């Protein structure tokens, strides 16, 4: 693996060799894709949403297909904060890649617990508060749709975290910029957007929703224009670092997100269709910089805004 200084970006807590990371929930804790390629190629790794104690998640079916996208209702199956700290993070420590620890919970105390448990892990570079998981009934998404609740949660987490805190915004809102501003005011060090959009599919044969959970989160290329719009809008109201995601499949998509205003990107669903999506994009980026005549990838950030 070659290091290319033109790709290096530094976000709070995340010194990245390149602006690419797998998105939370689409890479587990790295073990499986580590069999396919060297994780050291990645800029960072966002791990699966972690809750205070282990969760079993929702009944199956947990995924459904939609045009250019998919619905998931995994329901935050994870081994809990201690399990992640003791069983999963040590494996990732064998790589020189910062971890973005995705944190979920039903109540603010649960978020705080998780952060307390993980904040001293040496390879956790930063936290990503998942205030937008549409797939668990008790909470989570509530923090993502109410600016005051989002701000309050951010504050409480910031109080105990020794690492920078990113807040992952929900797209299922009327005004995403209001939430962005609220969490910025509460001390967030960065933003991630977007999480999945709530959707459903109904099977005409069974006459029931395809997902056991009835509804799930829409991800994949279908949501890309919505992600780009939200990022574009949020970039007009804040200068915070933004990790962008939503339907990224190709190097061209990464450039488009950069132009919309992100500092780094996360690749989710594309890993499933192409397990080499991340390393492939990383390897293609240098040629794109040359094509675009750009000396460093950060120079693209927000350059796609209309000069109004």
């Amino acid at each position, binding site marked *: 693996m070659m290091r290319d200084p033109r790709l290096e970006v530094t976000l709070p807590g995340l010194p990245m060799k390149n602006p690419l990371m797998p998105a939370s*929930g*689409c*890479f*587990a804790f790295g*073990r*499986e*894709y580590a*069999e*396919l390629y060297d994780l050291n190629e990645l800029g960072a790794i966002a791990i*699966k949403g972690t809750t205070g104690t282990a969760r*079993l*998640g929702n009944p*199956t*079916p*947990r*995924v*459904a*297909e939609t*045009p*250019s*996208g*998919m619905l*998931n209702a*995994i329901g935050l*199956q994870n081994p809990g904060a201690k399990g992640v700290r003791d069983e999963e993070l040590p494996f990732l420590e064998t790589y020189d890649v910062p971890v973005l620890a995705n944190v979920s919970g039903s109540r603010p105390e649960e978020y705080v617990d998780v952060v307390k448990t993980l904040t001293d892990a040496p390879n956790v570079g930063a936290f990503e508060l998942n205030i937008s998981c549409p797939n668990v009934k008790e909470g989570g998404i509530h923090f993502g749709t109410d600016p005051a609740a989002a701000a309050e949660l951010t504050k409480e987490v910031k109080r105990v975290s020794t690492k920078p805190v990113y807040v992952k915004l929900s797209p299922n809102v009327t005004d995403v910029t209001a939430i962005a501003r609220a969490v910025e005011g509460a001390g967030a060090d960065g933003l991630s957007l977007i999480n999945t959009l709530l959707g459903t599919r109904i099977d005409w044969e069974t006459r029931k929703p395809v997902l056991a959970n009835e509804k799930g989160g829409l991800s*994949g*290329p279908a949501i890309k224009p919505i992600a780009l719009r939200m990022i574009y809008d949020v970039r007009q109201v804040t200068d915070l670092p933004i990790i962008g995601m939503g339907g990224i499949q190709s190097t061209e998509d990464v450039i488009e997100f950069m132009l919309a205003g992100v500092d780094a990107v996360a690749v989710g*669903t594309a*890993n*499933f*269709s*192409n*397990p*080499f999506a991340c390393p492939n994009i990383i390897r293609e980026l240098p040629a794109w910089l040359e094509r675009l005549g750009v000396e460093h990838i950060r120079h693209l950030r927000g350059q796609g805004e209309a000069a109004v």
Partner: protein
Amino acid sequence: MKNEKMLIVDNRLIAAGTYEMTLAGTLVSEISRPGAFLHVAVPGEDLVLRRPISIASVDHEGGSCTLIFKDVGAGTERLARCHPGDRVDVLGPLGQQGFPVDEPYAADDVLLIGGGVGVPPLYYAACELAGRGVSVSVILGFQTTSAIFYEEQFRELPGCDVRIMTDDGSYGQKGTVIEAFEERGKRPDWLFSCGPRGMLRAVEKAGMHPHTKGYVSLEERMGCGVGVCLACVCETEDRSSYRKICRDGPVFPFKEVLL
């Protein structure tokens, strides 16, 4: 596990809505476990999820393997329409636990029970067992005559005893595989099964003697196919935890999982 654009050597209709696709590529060399599956990308950009299909047979010398699939929806329909010479993007072989075909002794009573498109991985298992000199009994269930496939292929395996059941009695014996199983009387030493969930439950109910080593291949909607997304879980028998079908399976001891 490899990700490869495999060459379609052949793709033909072998029974009502059922296709036999022969694929060539270097990942064939990694195929070793009956029960293992390929995660096949559907041509066209709009279907983002791959389709899991069991490996029905493998020809290591020829560098090819065979899938048998039924056209049941958008993805399999497109796969059915592929032509020899086309390439299809395949991730595999997947699944870390297959049918334990290396374990039975030649004298053991080995029974394979398959229903519909649950039959393909059992054919691969039967080939391996026959290759080791283990003779197997096979009970295959289909809806009707036109749906039957691979009867001849099974019969050609040395020592293979084949019984066909049809729901409508249009071929073989009328009835379900369970009836054939119960009629048979003696309980096998080994029981490998694959088919619809309802059939598997009935097999479990009818057949699990303490000394029978029973294995079942499971299906569930999948995302990644490699164990990261947690889409394809099944509960363990004691309901205390989950197994990932794509990685921990797709074959499990009957006793391990809740059907």
